[in-house]
């Protein structure tokens, strides 16, 4: 302990090495040692540590949990509604849809996805992804993260990976909720596909897994758009609303028959392609095309986000 410490009389907890001591230790190192690059192993660990911190923030935040809860609720409501409709029975005009779902517990999952993938899941994902950079800029924490220094590329990668994990979590929540609801309300057993062939329950579950993988990838592509928009503003609502506008404009354009040629370039066009798993055999070409489109969106908007964020003046 130097005399300075005793004079200023700072309180010290016994057994702990105070910060001041660490400082002096650092000073004793020759400058070369300080400037020596951090070993790659440590850097890798540091990346996962930051991602862990990011995931902790995301999955502990009440707002995000509420969004996931809403997603979980939809299949339950949908299942109960169909159960009541099927139970009222006697209706010869009962649509094929209700018959399909009422006939097998797994079908509710596919039905839920085809509802949610159009708007609600994109909303939920864009809230988290649109908030990623803009939210930190808005609260001013971005400047402290970058001064830490988190590194711009590293922070952007962590933010995007976090959004991807959340996108998959949202997809999994829908699948699990729909699966449980379906298993409780409707009979199990073999699954009749759109093509009329029946597959075993295990095969059906496998197809749900493929669906989760595919829909999650679609949401990850949407997250890339939202993260890119997020680098352009300090107001998260702006990035979130921008993503919503993007989705809605795409849906509108898709609905115009004359614009059919541009449909393949619109992201939401590919979201519903997961119904390829309901063919026998699985229409892998449709899934592949969709995944390629998602990949293209991730590359494009990832590059835009990086180009913007790596050169941006942080004045918030």
């Amino acid at each position, binding site marked *: 302990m*130097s005399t*300075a*410490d005793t004079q*200023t009389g*700072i*309180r010290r*907890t016994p057994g*702990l*090495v*105070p*910060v*001041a001591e*660490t*400082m*002096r*230790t*650092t*000073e004793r190192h020759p*400058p070369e040692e*300080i*400037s020596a*690059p*951090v070993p790659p192993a*440590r*850097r890798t*660990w*540091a*990346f996962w*540590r*930051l991602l*862990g*911190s990011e995931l902790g*923030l995301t999955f502990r*935040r*009440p707002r995000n949990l509420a969004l996931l809860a809403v997603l979980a609720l939809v299949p339950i409501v949908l299942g109960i509604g169909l159960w009541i409709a099927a139970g009222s029975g006697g209706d010869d005009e009962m649509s094929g849809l209700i018959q399909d779902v009422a006939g097998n517990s797994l079908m509710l999952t596919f039905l839920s996805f085809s509802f949610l993938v159009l708007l609600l899941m994109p909303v939920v994902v864009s809230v988290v992804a649109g908030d990623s950079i803009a939210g930190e800029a808005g*609260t*001013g*924490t971005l*400047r*402290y*993260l*970058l*001064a*830490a*220094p*988190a*590194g*711009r*590329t*590293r*922070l952007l990668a962590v933010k995007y990976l976090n959004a991807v994990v959340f996108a998959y979590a949202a997809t999994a929540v829908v699948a699990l909720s729909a699966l449980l609801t379906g298993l409780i309300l409707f009979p199990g057993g073999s699954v009749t596909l759109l093509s009329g062939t029946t597959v075993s329950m295990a095969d059906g579950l496998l197809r749900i897994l493929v669906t989760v993988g595919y829909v999650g990838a679609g949401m990850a592509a949407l997250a890339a758009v939202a993260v890119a928009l997020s680098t352009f503003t300090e107001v998260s609502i702006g990035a979130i609303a921008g993503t919503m506008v993007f989705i809605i404009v795409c849906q509108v354009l898709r609905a115009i028959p004359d614009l059919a040629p541009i449909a393949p370039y619109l992201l939401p066009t590919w979201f519903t392609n997961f119904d390829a798993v309901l063919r026998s055999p699985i229409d892998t070409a449709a899934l592949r095309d969709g995944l390629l489109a998602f990949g293209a969106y991730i590359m494009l908007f990832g590059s835009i986000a990086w180009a913007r964020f*790596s*050169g941006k*003046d*942080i*004045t918030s």
Partner: protein
Amino acid sequence: MTAITLEAGAPFGAAPPSGDAIVTHGLTKRFRGGQIAVDALDLAVPRGSVFGFLGPNGSGKTTTIRMLLGLVAPTAGTYSVLGLSAAHALPLVGALVEGPAFYPYLSGAANLMRFDAADPTAERATAKRRVADALERVGLSAAAGKRYRNYSLGMRQRLAIAAALLGPRELLILDEPTNGLDPQGTREVRTLVKEIAADGTTVFVSSHLLAEIEQMCTHAAIMRTGRLVAQGTIASLSSGRVALVKVETPDVADAARTLGTLGLADVRPGNGAVTAELGGHAPEKINAALVGDGVAVRGLAVVRPSLEDVFVGLTGEGFDVDG
């Protein structure tokens, strides 16, 4: 114009193996819209100094600090922090920029853990201990588990200082660290800064509180509308503005004549007193000369200018924000 890349391992234009913790050469920032916030700044902050960075509102202090931290890219000029590249320097720099900014829904300790996680050189194993130490140093241990949302202004400011002390630091950059602190808090920050400086850490502190800077700093620089108007040790800054000799006497005219004969510059007869620039003259000789000429000397004082006088002299009396 030299472009500075913000990413890791960027070659810094000015990175001589000098003894300076911060060096800038012609550092300039012109914001979009044409506003020149920092204009050809040549700063040299010696290692181990406590360096006061002074200037009126809008003079470019925060913008300079943002450039040093790699948050804002300079329009022109170069800078070097600790003589290292940004990626290597920043982990050794603790910073407080334009007030605290934290996650309102996290506790103070959780907030510090978050920023520690962002530093790639920080060890996770020691994080808890370092966070506790940093909180203790700023007197926040008792409020460590409280949500940031419920912190008072001063507690927030303290937490921001704690964040700057998370790791082993070679340089602390503190932008108005005493903002919002009560008198005790202000004193504690002053003590803390002195303590940190005693450990050999360079402290670069911007402030409006001139008395504060005068008590705390060894060096200072003064900014005005983005330009550096003075820098050096506190003593040299004050000596740059001449000391005055003030003679209290009923014989104002006689005294003024004597001072003029002695060769003192800027002799100003006033009401019951005469002032003049002391220059290289010895006060006792002046007194002897006055008495020799039969001037009734009631009092003779050497008035050394305070940093505030220096500051106002260099940045103007006006209250309005420039530019």
